[in-house]
């Protein structure tokens, strides 16, 4: 397909469409597979580093700062603290969401790294740093972070800034 004009006058061809269709079989790897199976079963699993003892979630099979394999699974709580967030006014998702919506970095109780997820069941104007939130599981779970539909306010007092300031 081209968007050039009539021939003979040598009107040049400006461009064409070049379709690419490549089929892959994605392999999640060991650590991610355990994490994703956990989500299917309604559990959030992190992994503890044998050297620095920090718990990484999602686990990726290695401690990124120590450079050693991580094997020990740690089941995390479903409640955590919003460390920071943004409010989104345009849709990026295949699922049309009601605008605006909030997405936040959340440090789950027992974890040392943050998950990024949706905050719902609260007006966006009330979302705040330090807010305590709880995971709400999707009706249908699978090997995806979408097994957690969103996080909602946990109804606890806000966490003090000092408790999460290292997770920004």
């Amino acid at each position, binding site marked *: 397909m081209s968007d050039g004009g009539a021939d003979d006058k040598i009107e040049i061809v400006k461009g064409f469409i070049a379709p690419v269709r490549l089929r892959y079989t*994605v392999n999640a790897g060991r650590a991610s597979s355990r994490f994703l199976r956990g989500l299917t079963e309604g559990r959030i699993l992190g992994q503890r580093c044998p050297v620095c003892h920090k718990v990484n979630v999602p686990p990726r099979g290695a401690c990124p700062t120590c450079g050693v394999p991580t094997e020990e699974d740690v089941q995390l709580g479903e409640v955590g603290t919003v460390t920071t967030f943004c409010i989104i006014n345009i849709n990026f998702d295949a699922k049309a969401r009601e605008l605006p919506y909030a997405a936040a970095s959340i440090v789950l109780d027992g974890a040392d790294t943050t998950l990024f997820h949706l905050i719902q069941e609260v007006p966006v104007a009330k979302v705040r740093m330090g807010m305590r939130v709880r995971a709400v599981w999707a009706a249908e779970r699978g090997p995806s972070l979408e097994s957690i539909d969103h996080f909602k306010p946990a109804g606890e007092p806000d966490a003090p800034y000092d408790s999460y300031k290292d997770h920004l």
Partner: protein
Amino acid sequence: MSARREVAIVSYAQTSFAPHTKLNDAELVMEAVTAALERAQLPRKQIGFCVSGSSDYLTGMPFSFVGALDAVGAWPPIQESHVEMDGAWALYEAWVRLLHGDIDTALVYAFGRSSLGDLQDVLVAQLDPYYLAPLGVDPNSLAALQARALLDTGRASERDFAEVATRCKRTAGGAPLDAPYVVSPLRAHDCPPVNDGAAAIVLAAGDRARALCKRPAWIRGIDHRIEAHSLGARDLTRSSSTTLAAVEAGVHTAPIEIAELHAPYSHQELIVKEALQLGDGVRINPSGGALAANPLMVAGLARIGEAAQQILDDNARRTLGHATSGPCLQQNLVCVMEASS
């Protein structure tokens, strides 16, 4: 200009180059890097410079090198770079960096999972996007055009191809000439397998290399050159870029004992061997080369690693590692290593 600093390979490690791995990129890299560092007894935090080679198109995911960094333990922050190429070019970058003189060690790694897609489709994306990629011409076909051109010169026969394949693949019953063609004149035994894997090399300079390793593989010369992309613009039966790189790397100043050539297709070994002017006394690809295992983006670095290992193991005094990139040997790198400094 003052004499160049001496740089050596002090350890090499690789994962198994299996037809398919269950590990992800970071897990693969972890295995290779950990083994290479253990062999050198070099703690992660003492690495001066780190550089890797990989291609997003193997897994179809952008930024694949970012996740692999998890396997390095990049904390405190490290001096690090990445080439979207075979790891052999990452090794070249590390060698250049070590010449500066301010750091003494470098880690080089490469990873690739060729099994996740269909390479005959994926590698079409490497071609000129206006004239070649829209034709869908696959890598086996391009190699076959090169093989035919070589046959036409009379410098090689299909029997010669089969002999290369028999030696590299070590298959029972050899490589029969009555086997069907995949794309004529290439048969299955003339084409590379599909493999996943990772490899890692530790480099060190001067006294640091001597301290880390009993018998370092000193890099005597390393150079790489590229040719025109269009197949019609070059003589496919000669690897002029290999010849140029070989001269720059000093291949001919003394005899080579063992050469590891990155020749994914059997006829390419003949072309590269001729371009390097290697005599018949040179042992070629004792590892089996890329015809035995061809994890893309890793296979070139692995050739250098295998050639270095021959020195580390005291099997040879002077070896050569070669890497290639692109269709029909478009780009080539030559690395000459010696036992004594």
